[in-house]
Each structure stands twice: as C-alpha cells, then as structure tokens.
C-alpha cells in the first residue's frame, strides 16, 4: 500500500519507487527490487495501477506506473483507517523473560542486558535526530517512543519477576 501511495505522488518507474521508499520510509531498511516489481505486477493485475510501454534504455524495467482511480480510492481508504493496535504481547522480549523464569535462568540479568541495548539504540537515534534531516528526526522519534515504551515495560516487569516466576514455575 505504501508503494501504491508513492505511485499516486507521481507516475514513477520501479527504481524511482524503490529510491523514494528507501529515502523516506525505509529507515535504513532497503526495499528489495524483486519485492518492488512483484508488488507492482500485483497492483497492475488488480487494476490499481497501469503501466506504460517499456521505454528504451538499460535496466531491468523501464515501465512507468500510474495510479488508477481504483488505486487512489484504496490509498484514501488506507490512509483514513487506524491500523490495529497490537493486541497481544508476543515479542521475543516477552518470550525470553517467560522462558528464563521457567528454566530458572536470570530473567533480571537478561532485562538488564536488554535495557542497556535499548538505551544504546536510543542514543543512536537521538544522535540521528540531532544531526539528520527532518524526515530522519521524525523516524527517529517514532523509534524512540517505541523503545521508551519497551523500557517502561522492562522496568515494570523487573519489579514483578518474583510473582511471574511463581506463576510460570507451577
């Protein structure tokens, strides 16, 4: 859906979409070309985009993609919908704490290691925010708030380890 939104921004080649995605949205995670073209093929099949004729030149794909009215409607709907708030805590972090308690390992030690790792990442993101472009700052803030939420959970969990241990070791 993000790619479809980028096509709405302006008719684009696949490599332009990948470039824009990596620059504005990827937060250091590059979108594979294969995924870009597979998505564009699916969107074309579903009538969300149309592709022009292949243009002369080197490169894997010289087609320019343009969004259709149906595609625009999809983007508008998607942008107006809330995403589902994560309803269940099923992270690796959670699993490690529970397993540590079950196996009588040091959950507290793990939480301290994880806290240090979170703080280190928060320092990196804060530096990115201080020195980067506004879009970097926006993405860094998103990461910082989520890491902060994890840290609060880590602090709270640490204070409840004994009660959790009694429950999972039954």
């Amino acid at each position, binding site marked *: 859906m993000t790619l479809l939104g980028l096509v709405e921004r302006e008719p684009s080649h696949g490599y332009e979409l990948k470039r824009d995605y990596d620059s504005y949205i990827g937060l250091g995670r590059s979108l594979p070309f294969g995924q870009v073209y597979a998505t564009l093929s699916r969107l074309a099949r579903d009538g969300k985009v149309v592709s022009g004729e292949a243009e002369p030149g080197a490169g894997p794909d010289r087609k320019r993609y343009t969004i259709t009215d149906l595609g625009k409607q999809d983007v508008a709907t998607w942008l107006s919908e809330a995403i589902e708030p994560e309803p269940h805590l099923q992270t690796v972090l959670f699993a490690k704490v529970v397993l540590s308690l079950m196996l009588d390992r040091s959950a507290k030690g793990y939480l301290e290691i994880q*806290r240090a790792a979170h703080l280190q990442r*928060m320092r990196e993101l804060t530096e990115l925010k201080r020195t980067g472009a506004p879009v970097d700052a926006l993405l860094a803030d998103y990461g910082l708030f989520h890491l902060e939420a994890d840290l609060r959970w880590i602090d709270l969990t640490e204070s409840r380890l004994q009660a959790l241990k009694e429950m999972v070791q039954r």
Partner: protein
Amino acid sequence: MSSTNLAPRHESVPLIAGRDIVKSFGETPALRGVSVSIGPGEIVAIMAPSGSGKSTLLHCLAGIFPPDSGQVWFDGRQIDSLDETQRTKLRRTTFGFVFQFGQLVPELTAADNIALPLLLDRTNHREAYRRATSWLQRLGLGALGGHRTGELSGGEAQRVALARALVTRPAVLFADEPTGSLDSLMGEQVMEFLVDLTRQEGTTVVVVTHDARVAAYADRAVMVRDGRTTTPAPAQAVRQ
C-alpha cells in the same frame, strides 16, 4: 590532576568519582555502596526510578552533603572530607547546577539572573552583564534579557537557568531532572542546548533523570536500583 595512587581507577583519568558511597536519611538508606567514575568532558546520565537514590548520589558527588561512608573525588582531590566552607567554595567556583525548577529569582530579569553568580564572585558589573548577554544570545534568548524570569515560559526559564549554570565556566555541570517540568518538545530543546553548549565548552555533565529520552542525550548511562549501581551490560551481549 594529582597522581596519587589512592584515586579511583578509570580507563581514562576520572574527573569526578564516587567510591562505595553510602548515605542514609535517618533509618532510611538512600545509597548502599555506589561507585561511579566520570571522565573529563563526558556526559553521563544517572538513571533510576523516582526514590531510588539518584538525586542523593548527585548531591554527594557535587559536595552538597558528604556521604556517611565512602569517598568522593574531584580532579584527583578527595572532597568528601572537606568542611562545609570548602565544599561551598568548590561548588560556587567549579560546579554548575540546573534543577527541575525554582532556581531563578523571579523578580530579577533574565540577564540579572545569569549575571548574578559572576557578581557574587566579584566580577565587575560591565563584564558580568556582557557575558550574560552573550549567553542569552547563545541560547536564542537575546530579546528576553530584560524580561523578569517570572514572565518567561518554562522552556525559556530553563534555558536561562542553563546559562546561569554555565556562565562561570564550571568544570562539571550537575543537572537534576533538568526537563522534568517541561513538555517533551521544550524538554528536547533544553537538552539540545545543554549538549551543544557543554560540548563546546568542554564541560563534564552529570545528568540525573528517570526519563530514558533525556538519558539518550548522554554518552552513557549509569543505572541506580535500590541504592546501588547495576553493572552495565556489554554491547557484545546484544544479538539480533
């Protein structure tokens, strides 16, 4: 710096260090044997939940009160054994302080507040106000020098407090929850200024906070739990 072999060891020579600090208030223990070592120019966050002894640690390191036992070192000199007069002089001449609130004189202007520590230290009037004005400009407050601090927003007042703490060019800035009374945007502005200005000045910073986003501005964090520092985890312990 003294080369005495009694000074606590640090990878680089520490500017300020506490060793096995114990401090109680009546029957209530606040610190149960804390050791911390801070190098020159470092920005270190002391992080802990409320009531975990982090402000007490700051007060001991800054010589505001001596620990019940343990040692505090500054620049190769043991300062916990200094008398109150000597510690007061050290604080006034060598340390700067930023607290959560309540440190400015509301009836005085921003420039007066910043010039005040210089005037108390017998800097001449013209020079004190020249430096105060310079700091106001560095903090983006050039137009507010004549305003009473009671009329300033929380963020502006805290920037004035930062200028007042730094105007004497202290070796160490101690900041206790410096953004605690501010909304997150104002708090970030204050931390930006704090980090930028202390790096420019080469000031060592000890910032006490419960807020991970504030601690993330520091070079490293020292965790205090139940009156003790916890061992920081090595980076290589992190796995994807």
